[in-house]
């Protein structure tokens, strides 16, 4: 491996730079998403951006495509500094983006989605025939048999992603940013996409590519840039890098999320899941969780690893009580709890920290303190009324125990950083004195320091006899405090490891293709 530098000026260059970010920084209040990043896009080449969740990849791409504006730093297009007020301005200059989250109108047809906002006008209004013709051409290029008049909601997720891609292609951009374009695509579809990308680069179009599938990205990329915690940590052309290089730069050398707590014996089985089956909530004919069995002992920490769509979230949310199972048992400390409400399960000591804290974890209209006490409110009610002194003590104790950095219980929840918001959600659950705590992607979108603190909290809880189960899509996070690692694939447990497993073993079992 060659020595690497993180300054663009000093690196081995290839091809003309068409678009560049210079010292770009972006803050959201107290959270610094980007801390002065330099980034070059070369004409007719593919540049891949690697980084973990929360590293700042999407933020950087949103800045380059005009969706958001940087707090400081500048964007240079063809050697000239530019400022895009919005994404339409950027699109007019030839930059378009395929967003990570699909931005299609599900009720409209494929054709209408592709030409949304820039309909082709004929003499008598929109020229639907021409739009349809062009849509067909695009679909042929992507080797998909999708009728342009099909409503998008009738397509499966992968096909919707194809439509999203087709929309970006239809603009004839010079620079095309693809943020996780393959997350829902099949292997065959990915191959087609790569062929399209090669055609585009041959025509001089520059591609920025973001993917969690490292191997896949390595197949297509010409350059690799790695982001970590809002800074660029490494840059290299394809010829000089391999998978190991990427992982090392993504996670950093001193990446320590702790080790499994030891020095005590596990207690009784706290949670026992028997043959749990959950049908697809969207009405599909398959099961998102398929006859899954798992035992969890008091004091044990179990990590569930799996790709998107492996069924981790559905498993945890079903155990917590949000979804009904179509079969199987959930036994908490020897008692079947499948028929109980979420509230009753929390009362018995089984609680979930959900994946999306903004959507499922926090009530934005309430203060930090009210959020913290929400789940345990039954414990400090006399008659009908809340006992303020008891609540205040609980809030203060929890803020101290989970180390939330806040001006006090009365602070607005929005004034906290992502990591501290996550600690509020965890604190809320901890305040109910659970026996089993389940955390769905507890490290999502929080920085590395906060991650380490969250894991330290969980390890400490386990030492006190709490049974902990958490899910993650980052292998490194499984190889931290977990005593046992469960790999989920298509709703089933595909492998089980102890703490001595390697990243490659775990990733291979999850269905990810890893060259060993």
């Amino acid at each position, binding site marked *: 491996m060659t020595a690497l530098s993180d300054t663009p000026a000093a690196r081995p260059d290839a091809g003309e730079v068409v678009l560049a970010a210079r010292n770009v920084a972006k803050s959201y209040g107290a959270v610094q998403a980007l801390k002065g990043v330099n980034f070059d896009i070369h004409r007719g080449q593919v540049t891949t951006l690697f980084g973990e969740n929360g590293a700042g990849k999407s933020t950087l791409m949103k800045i380059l495509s005009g969706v958001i504006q940087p707090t400081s730093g500048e964007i240079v297009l063809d050697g000239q500094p530019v400022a895009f007020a919005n994404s339409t301005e950027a699109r007019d200059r030839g930059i378009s983006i395929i967003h990570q989250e699909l931005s299609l109108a599900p009720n409209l047809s494929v054709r209408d989605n592709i030409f949304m906002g820039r309909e082709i006008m004929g003499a008598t209004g929109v020229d639907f025939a021409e739009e349809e013709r062009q849509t067909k051409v695009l679909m042929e290029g992507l080797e998909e048999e999708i009728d342009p008049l099909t409503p998008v909601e009738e397509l499966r997720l992968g096909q919707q992603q194809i439509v999203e891609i087709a929309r970006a292609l239809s603009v004839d951009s010079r620079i095309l940013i693809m943020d996780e374009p393959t997350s829902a695509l099949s292997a065959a579809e990915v191959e087609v996409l790569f062929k399209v990308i090669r055609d585009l680069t041959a025509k001089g179009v520059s591609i920025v590519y973001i993917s969690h599938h490292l191997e896949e990205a390595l197949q297509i990329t010409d350059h690799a840039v790695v982001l970590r915690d809002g800074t660029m940590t490494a840059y290299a052309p394809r010829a000089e890098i391999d998978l190991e290089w990427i992982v090392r730069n993504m996670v950093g050398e001193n990446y320590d999320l702790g080790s499994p707590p030891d020095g005590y014996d596990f207690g009784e089985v706290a949670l026992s899941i028997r043959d749990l089956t959950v049908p697809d909530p969207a009405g599909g004919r398959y099961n998102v969780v398929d006859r899954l069995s798992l035992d969890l002992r008091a004091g044990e920490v179990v990590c569930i690893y799996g790709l998107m769509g492996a069924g981790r979230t559905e498993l945890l949310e079903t155990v917590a009580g949000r979804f009904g199972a179509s079969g199987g048992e959930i036994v908490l400390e020897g008692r079947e709890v499948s028929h109980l409400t979420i509230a009753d399960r*929390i009362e018995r000591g089984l609680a979930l920290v959900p994946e999306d804290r903004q959507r499922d974890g926090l009530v*934005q209209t309430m203060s930090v303190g009210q959020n913290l006490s*929400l789940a345990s409110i039954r414990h400090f009610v006399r008659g009908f009324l809340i006992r303020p002194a008891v609540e205040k003590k609980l809030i203060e104790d929890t803020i101290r125990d989970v180390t939330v950095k806040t001006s006090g219980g009365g602070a607005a929840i929005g004034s906290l950083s992502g990591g501290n918001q996550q600690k509020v959600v965890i604190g809320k659950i901890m305040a109910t004195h659970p026996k089993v705590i389940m955390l769905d992607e507890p490290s999502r979108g929080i920085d590395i320091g906060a991650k380490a603190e969250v894991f330290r909290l969980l390890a400490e809880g386990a030492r006190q006899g709490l049974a902990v189960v958490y899910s993650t899509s980052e292998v490194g996070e499984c190889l931290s405090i977990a005593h046992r690692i469960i790999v989920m694939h298509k709703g089933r447990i595909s492998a089980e490891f102890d703490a001595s497993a390697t990243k490659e073993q775990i990733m291979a079992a999850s269905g990810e293709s890893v060259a060993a």
Partner: protein
Amino acid sequence: MSDTGVTRASSSKEGGMGIVRLLLEGRAFFALIVIIAVFSFLSPNYLTVSNFLIMASHVAIYGILAIGMLLVILNGGIDLSVGSILALAGVVAGAMMQGVEIQAAGVILYPPVWAVVILTCVMGALVGAVNGVLVAWFKVPAFVATLGVMYVARGVALLMTNGLTYNNLSGRAELGNTGFDWLGFNRLFGIPISVLVLAAIAILAGIMLSRSSFGRWLYASGGNERAAELSGVPVKRVKITVYTLSGILSAVAGLVLSSQLTSAGPTAGTTYELTAIAAVVIGGAALTGGRGTVRGTMLGAFVIGFLSDGLVIIGVSSYWQTVFTGAVIVLAVLMNSIQYGGRARKG
């Protein structure tokens, strides 16, 4: 990726923003003071104790409805049926005052007034519960469910009286059912009973919202229902309860109104649901749920009541009253979006 929903620091508390904030948060209060000052200047009869008590007894009807509406709006819903439930309650009470004939037994029952009041409230609770069940269990959008119930309740009220009005609600001494006009006409310590009823309901609702676990559940499920549910809040029960309470309060308002008018007509309370919504909105509650207080709603109700009565006193045409009321509502919502707009989450 990254936390877009985060942090708009406390910059708005600094410097010149302080006054703007104060004006925004106390806007209903300032509006009320301005209204009182302007009308006192325009009419010598406005600023008198007796006029204030009369206006307050008018406000009582809207105020009671508005508290019920506030509970529903805090939950993120809306209740369009309150005006119709009010009319139905009046008609049901009127019918009971005229005597309930039980043909099988061949007798006519004249229930005492307290029983009439209780039965009417139970009727209101049942209709409200229908709203709640439709919204919570059958997932009918609140707007549609309560719109339907609004028509049904109004239709039932019209059917019960064949479109006519009960004019005699005073009862007869020999039947032991006198005293219905007590609610609307009597005074305690010189204050109309209706105002006292409003005050009692407001205080109870205020305590419930700020001090009870139910109040916390209501704010939580209105602010983020999914998060509340995962925190063990019985969100469906909360929902049904707020619609039921709104139904009960509509029935109470119906009793007060028919007592004040000493008559009960099936067309009473038409468009009152809109006045109640206006009071809640002027009081600073967010229609998206989770934000709002009883104090604000009370101020909102007084702003509307004092404004329209003031316009009557200085002799402005009732058509202009409508225009003014509309303008006040738009202004209030405008300020709501200024106040909450800056805090809204992006993407």
